């Protein structure tokens, strides 16, 4: 895969504590979702983002987790298909 636009972010993510995991995935032929580089770059910030997202998507709610995922997919598909 091509590197992300912010090449230093990807490079530093691969050189950081998550680097071994990324290398193992690549060695096993598993595509590394590049969003993981964004999370690995500033874990002090993104750890909270992960936990917030986890609560939002899986925490107690009248909406089932599947429905929340569908809303996420709906939003994302709308934002990639401008009118």
């Amino acid at each position, binding site marked *: *895969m*091509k*590197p*992300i*636009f*912010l*090449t*230093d*972010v990807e490079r530093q993510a691969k050189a950081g504590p998550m680097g071994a995991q990324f290398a193992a995935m690549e060695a096993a032929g*598993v*595509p590394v*979702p*590049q*969003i993981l*580089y*964004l999370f690995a*770059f*500033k874990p*002090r*910030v*993104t*750890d*909270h*983002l*992960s*936990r*917030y*997202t*986890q*609560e*939002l*998507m*899986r*925490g107690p*709610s*009248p*909406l089932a*987790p*599947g*429905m*929340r*995922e*569908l*809303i*996420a*997919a*709906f*939003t*994302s*598909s*709308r*934002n*990639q298909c*401008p009118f």
Partner: protein
Amino acid sequence: MLGDTAKVQAVLNDYRTAPITEAEKALFEFLDKVNRQSHQIRQADVDEARRAGWTDEALYDAIGVCAQFNYYNRWVDATGVQDMPAIGYQMSGHRLATEGYARPPALDAANDRLHPESPGAGCYELPSPGKKTTLEPMFLRDVEEREGGGQYADLIRQTHAVGGPVSQIFYLFAFKPAMTDHLSYFTQELMRGPSPLSPGLRELIAAFTSRLNHCRYCASSHAAAAALLLGSREFVQGVLENHRASALSPAEKALFGFIEKVTGPSWEIRRGDVDQVRQAGWSDEALYDAITVCALFNFYNRWVHAAGVHVMPQEWHEVSGKRLAERGYVLR
């Protein structure tokens, strides 16, 4: 996770003709508006979704998810996260469905860090009781009326006790504190943590993004915070009115031009756009931080608009700006 790929695809193609219930169609119609023109959401839009059978809590959660993916979409678009082969998405989907977004041990550690002690009373400088001004109720009335919990519920009680103005965004935080505590800490780290961008410049990016999204509520508070941190209200006003003709440096103008694109059609951002702003002198870390701030305020703007958090008298926004500038995003 719904166990029906065809149904999911039908909703993504056109929810109006998809094999889903009328209530679900009404929800997606509402979310379509939250996504694209949240500043035009009115009480009537929320009432229509309610009539279809959705509770305020369901709408609060649906708005939260839609707004949050406006964050993620921009984060991914502007940093250049590339499309994966289909197998990659299948694996990601499986991971999210089984493990979710954060691993449990990390959650426990976070909770220890988040709640070392309950926030002390009087730790927050309350706004002085001014002339009585009442705001219209929020669109999600149950969210405003439920007592809520956590640090924001304490703040709401303290503020009421002295007759001070309650900013309605507090109700959004108090409604689900187990979730929003993490949002507060994320926002605090992003806006005040180590970065090549000063906190004042980050506040200015927040205000600028909010202005582009027509979010007067967020733009007013964060402009006030930026003015305090940067030491000039005129400078901030100039940037919000027309950043191209403002007192920003040429490098800053390039950055704000890029931010405009991240808030707008972020799916059109290409490597060349990023190279151009990098050539103006910004490091990848600076760009990462700027993109993340902009993306986060694309979340907040939609959250605030769709829940019906109303703009306040200017002096209340000044109080909010002062609190943000002096104490940040975590009430302690």
